[in-house]
């Protein structure tokens, strides 16, 4: 019995989503290549000895950042999943969505407030040892900042994967008197491992494309990523051919790394049985409980520290006056509207891709994956390593003959942000969808439930929470975006981060700090709302 027909609407949805993404990226390249074609010298000149060093540093810092983010995240996620009633757990998880919304420079200043030469630890160190604190400029600074951004992200995504473990398994484990170690090996690790390549790949891509963090905290141009080269090519040099060449190089390198990461993972066979046991949680003994608590508190302190510094700095600003300014109110509304629209589009795209991938995998059953399945699986994630400035500039060039480029600016911002957030949403949605699909596919086929009815009755209840997580991440990411808006922004379209940077750029650091706080609060409010949406039913997943 073929569970999914070749004409399954889910596959069609996936193909449409892929086509939209391809159009967005392909169109940008087309525009740049068209403009750059008459002068290809820059493309060849890009390959100099310095490039080799840049490539080496880019990969090295990204690999280290990924390792330092993902391994602790795995442990923290496990700790959180074993203590569902941990004090403040819900709040911790909401807090973990916030770093993504902070513009890189705000996060960097927050981190420096703790670890910088004038930071908290510098004061502590000179008070205790009488020594000067050297600050964290260099690789260590880059790593701290990257872990600050990615540890919370990876934790939430791993947690999402752990929550797909059927409750029957936990019941069985408890009946067998399984301890923490075998439970990890037999129950938790397979679920984590299935999610590992995707999450590690995502973090790796984010670190590969890091730009402001690497330059600001890196201590000098020895710390330079390919992204800086791409930015330079499009900025001072205006050399589209070189920008495209470097972007392709970035994609190719990331592709190789992601390919290697895939080997770490495993495809778990989903559990086809409907869960009958009520939701239950593993028994945790005292020693493990304290270890887990230490892990959670440690991660919380690491993430909350720089955020607390941001809040403190923000409180010293004249918040009342800022909130009263028309420009600020307008930017807040614009930001919120853009973030909501981007997140909605992003979640729809990733859901379409996930469903298509699931349906394709069912059709295939055995044998190698088709190209389409690969594309809906890891392929779509690669949009992350295409710099927004490349997409923006490409479309600008393509559309300038077609009419008013300003008029499409908001559309461009929303679309690019949605596509950029899609890989995050994908990671949040997929484990739950695959698990639910494994359980429900047969039942749906037997009962002839399909289309909207299936979505409403079968998929929605189990997808609700992960969709909310995906939505929250996509929103946070769009809220903090500066890449696209920097190119398309104009006086009629200003977002909060844009305004923040403008204030910073004209000596108004206090205002900027206040706006960072405001941005964080807007994000928190939106994340809380998304969480509430996700908590509809108590039904087990």
């Amino acid at each position, binding site marked *: 019995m073929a569970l999914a027909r070749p004409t399954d609407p889910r596959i069609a949805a996936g193909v449409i989503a892929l086509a939209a993404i391809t159009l967005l990226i392909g169109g940008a390249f087309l525009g740049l290549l068209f403009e750059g074609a008459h002068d290809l010298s820059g493309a060849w000149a890009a390959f100099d000895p310095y490039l080799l060093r840049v490539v080496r540093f880019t990969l090295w810092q990204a690999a280290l950042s990924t390792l330092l983010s993902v391994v602790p995240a795995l442990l923290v996620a496990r700790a959180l999943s074993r203590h569902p009633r941990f004090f403040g757990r819900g709040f911790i998880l909401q807090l973990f969505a916030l770093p993504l919304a902070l513009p890189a420079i705000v996060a960097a200043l927050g981190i420096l*407030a703790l670890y910088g030469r004038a930071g908290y630890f510098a004061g502590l160190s000179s008070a205790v040892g009488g020594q000067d604190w050297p600050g964290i400029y260099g690789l260590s600074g880059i790593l701290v900042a990257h872990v600050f951004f990615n540890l919370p992200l990876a934790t939430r995504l791993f947690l999402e994967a752990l929550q797909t473990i059927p409750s029957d398994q936990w019941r069985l484990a408890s009946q067998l008197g399984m301890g923490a170690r075998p439970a990890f090996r037999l129950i938790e690790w397979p679920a984590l491992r299935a999610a590992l390549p995707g999450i590690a790949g995502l973090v790796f891509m984010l670190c590969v494309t890091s730009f402001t963090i690497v330059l600001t905290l890196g201590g000098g141009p020895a710390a330079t990523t390919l992204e800086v080269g791409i930015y330079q090519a499009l*900025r001072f040099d205006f050399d589209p051919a070189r920008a495209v060449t470097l972007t392709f190089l970035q994609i190719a390198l990331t592709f190789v790394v992601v390919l290697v990461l895939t080997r770490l993972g495993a495809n778990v066979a989903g559990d086809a049985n409907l869960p009958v046991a009520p939701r239950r949680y593993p028994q945790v003994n005292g020693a493990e409980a304290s270890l887990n608590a230490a892990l959670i508190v440690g991660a919380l302190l690491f993430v909350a520290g720089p955020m607390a510094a941001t809040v403190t700095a923000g409180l010293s600003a004249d918040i009342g006056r800022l909130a009263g300014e028309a420009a600020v109110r307008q930017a807040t509304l614009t930001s919120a509207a853009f973030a909501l629209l981007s997140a909605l589009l992003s979640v729809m795209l990733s859901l379409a891709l996930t469903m298509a991938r699931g349906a394709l995998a069912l059709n295939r059953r055995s044998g190698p994956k088709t190209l389409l399945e690969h594309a809906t699986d890891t392929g779509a994630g690669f949009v992350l390593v295409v710099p927004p400035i490349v997409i923006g500039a490409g479309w600008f060039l393509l559309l300038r003959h077609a009419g008013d480029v300003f008029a499409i600016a908001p559309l461009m911002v929303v679309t690019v942000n949605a596509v950029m957030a899609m890989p995050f949403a994908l990671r949040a949605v997929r484990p739950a969808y695959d698990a639910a699909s494994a359980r429900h596919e047969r039942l749906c086929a037997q009962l002839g439930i399909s289309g909207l009815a299936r979505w409403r009755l079968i998929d929605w209840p189990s997808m609700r929470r992960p969709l909310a997580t995906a939505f929250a991440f996509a929103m946070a990411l769009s809220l903090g975006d500066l890449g696209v808006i920097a190119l398309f922004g104009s006086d009629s379209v200003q977002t909060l981060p844009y305004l923040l940077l403008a204030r910073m*750029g004209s000596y108004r650091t206090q205002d900027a700090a206040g706006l960072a706080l405001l941005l964080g609060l807007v994000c928190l409010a939106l994340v809380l709302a998304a969480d509430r949406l996700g908590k509809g039913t108590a039904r087990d997943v």
Partner: protein
Amino acid sequence: MRTFLYSLVSAAVVALSGPALAKDKLTVYTYESFTADWGPGPVVKKEFEAECGCDVEFVSVADGVALLNRVRLEGASTKADIVLGLDTNLTADAKATGLFAPHGPVSDAAVPGGWTDDTFVPFDYGYFAVVYDTEKLKSPPKSLKDLVEGSADDKIVIQDPRTSTPGLGLLLWVKSVYGDKAPEAWAKLKTKVLTVTPGWSEAYGLFTKGEAPMVLSYTTSPAYHMVAENTERYQAASFEEGEYLQIEVAGITTTGAKNPLAAKFMAFMTGPKFQDAIPETNWMFPAGKTDKPLNPAFDRLVKPTKTLLFSPEEVAANRKAWVDEWLAVMSK
């Protein structure tokens, strides 16, 4: 969102109602901090609109480099009549695009070293300077040589010349003082550089947070702190070799050459109504006659003993090689 919808609708109305209405409008592309509420933009708009009985529309992007790129991206179909906010390091590239037209008659621009150019007209200028924190640094460097050879404990934050205008400014400054010996100077200066940020904002942010006692900025930066914040804490160091000049200019695009308001605006720009607004909104020196005297704070700023400046052609011809030279030393 409402403003946005409104501008969409009004754009459509303008498009439909044809050239009769659109004629009375002047579109000026400029950088962000020019059009900000506290920038010169609002004053300039009001004054010029009163004079010409027309509509001024500002479109702003992040900075001068982004401004040139915006015009390049839009090409000949650009809506800009005037592009305001390029500096002399960009004018050669800007001319090479063929998107700019001669500016017509304007009154003499008052910038150090004089000005002759048929395409671009200066509207303000400033000097790059090392700004220091008087609470952290008791004896600031007295020359670029002092800075280069001084103790490695006194850190400075600078900007990357690959991504930022002040970063390029410091590179040209060192080049104009040290010439062929610039790589050696950078090798020494490198030990004092705390970090190299992508833009001015990041560097100045680190500086005011106390991460480093010095930052590369402008001689006019202390004026902001004195006038707007009432503090003398941040001062610019005066260098014996002189300071490197930045001249900000505006030009008429080929689109603007068809709009009579563009030439009018250029004449207005060098006049007192525009120039009066510059010092305390853009924190730069006026490049024309003003009606009001400068705020006394400006008299207390560092006065360069010598003005350093490469011609736009020299910069355009050598920028890439010089940046590569810098990169080779700094990334070791």
